[in-house]
């Protein structure tokens, strides 16, 4: 478990970046917390710097959009999903549990 911070320090519409085995971005989307890999799968950019719209974040460089719930990109320029991670809140403190790598798209294609 990675300690992220106090829930009160991540207001709605905001995000923070923490370091797991790679950088992880934690978002507060209308009160729901989500965590995904911070680095855009298109080209090197920090998604925690991106724009939050509903349950999606838009990369600040080239406007690739990722669904925070699934990590899937909605279309070009990104193709590969980002990993999603479980977020828990315990007594006002936010934690992230880093997921092992799952290439969701590869799995979906194999089905």
């Amino acid at each position, binding site marked *: 478990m990675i300690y992220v911070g106090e829930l009160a320090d991540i207001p709605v519409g905001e995000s923070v970046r923490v370091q797991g085995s790679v950088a992880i971005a934690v978002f507060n989307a209308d009160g729901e917390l989500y965590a995904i890999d911070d680095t855009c799968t298109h*080209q*090197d*950019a*920090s998604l*925690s*710097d*991106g*724009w939050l719209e509903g349950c999606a974040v*838009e990369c*600040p*460089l*080239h*406007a690739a959009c990722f669904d925070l719930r699934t990590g899937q990109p*909605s*279309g*070009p*320029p990104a*193709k590969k999903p980002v990993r999603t991670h479980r977020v828990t809140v315990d007594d006002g403190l936010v934690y992230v549990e880093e997921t092992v790598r799952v290439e969701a798209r590869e799995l979906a*294609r194999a089905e």
Partner: protein
Amino acid sequence: MQTITIVGGSVAGVRSAEALRAAGYDGRLLLVGDDPHRPYDRPPLSKAFLAGGVDEDAIALLDDVEVAELALEMRLGVRAARLDPAGGAVELADGSTIATDGVVVATGGRARRLPGTEGVAGVHTLRTLDDARALRAELRAGSPRVVVVGGGFIGAEVASTCRAMGLDVTVLDGLPLPMAPVLGPRIARHCVDLHAEHGTDLRPGAAVSGFATAPTADGPRVVGVELGDGTTVPADVVVVGIGIAPNTEWLDGSGLAVANGVVTDAGMVTDLPAVVAVGDVARWGPGAAGRRHEHWTSAGEQAAVAAANLLAGRTEATFRPTGYVWSEQYGRMLQLAGHPSAEDHVDVVDGEPDAGRFVARYVDAEGTTTGVFGMGDPRTFGRVRRSELRRRAAAA
């Protein structure tokens, strides 16, 4: 339409293929390109790819699965030689002909060269994957002294990449203040200052008059760049980044209007409703106000509009450019959105220009925000852009 042929295999062509399928087109779809490589993304060619940080796979625009999903037939490594709208055909340089109902012109441009560089080893332009490979190989051979001709985005990015590789770099630009016609004097100054701060020798107001060469067993090789004041800047490698010329020659005799690009209406449609143009080659808009956008983001935005209009058979959608451009220099992201004029007033709204991290807006004489510029702060840039510029959702 039963067959649509996209001529040009860079980002504008690929986004057109994706947009046509997304819009429901289920007929035959071909993509013809003179570049022998699978479609790839050009922006990294002057940055991470040139530095060696990413490989060909990382910059591919389409993988095998995507090509199959798009049901896209690709004819790569062959140039389109002629468009015959009356006969409904695209003729290729290998003598073959493609019968087609619709055409997307996405032939882009080629790097402009300087006279006296033909056949001179060590003088490079940077437009294609092969260009980038050739330049990368020379940058890695020893510690060449690099001279970049042109202080625009490409030149500045190459200089930045070379400095990160530990090479001595000189940038020559004819303007007293490079970038000023695009960014205005104040923002241009902050961008240009990055060169000196990172050890690049920028020489503004430098007029290149010729190239000094030395004979080798393989022919002449560049050893210096000659300036109008009679001096010569020693060089082992020269990179010429002075813009592009649109690839329109293949359209001669087609009946399409060509004037520094393929002339289109506001919806990327040419004089012929079955022919649209996108990307660097397209000159859209009315009459003298028509202009080309040589930008990655515009290519995608135009592709969505052009695909819709091609399938509709008339102009239903119009192109509304966001004007978004980015560059990466010396570890800093430079971002611009909107359509500022070089004369607009500049307000710094966040950060410290002298620290190389700030966001500013351009304001015209009426007090309207015309553009937003950011250096080293994508997060704040995105927020200011959204609050200051009305922005439609990016076209898919």
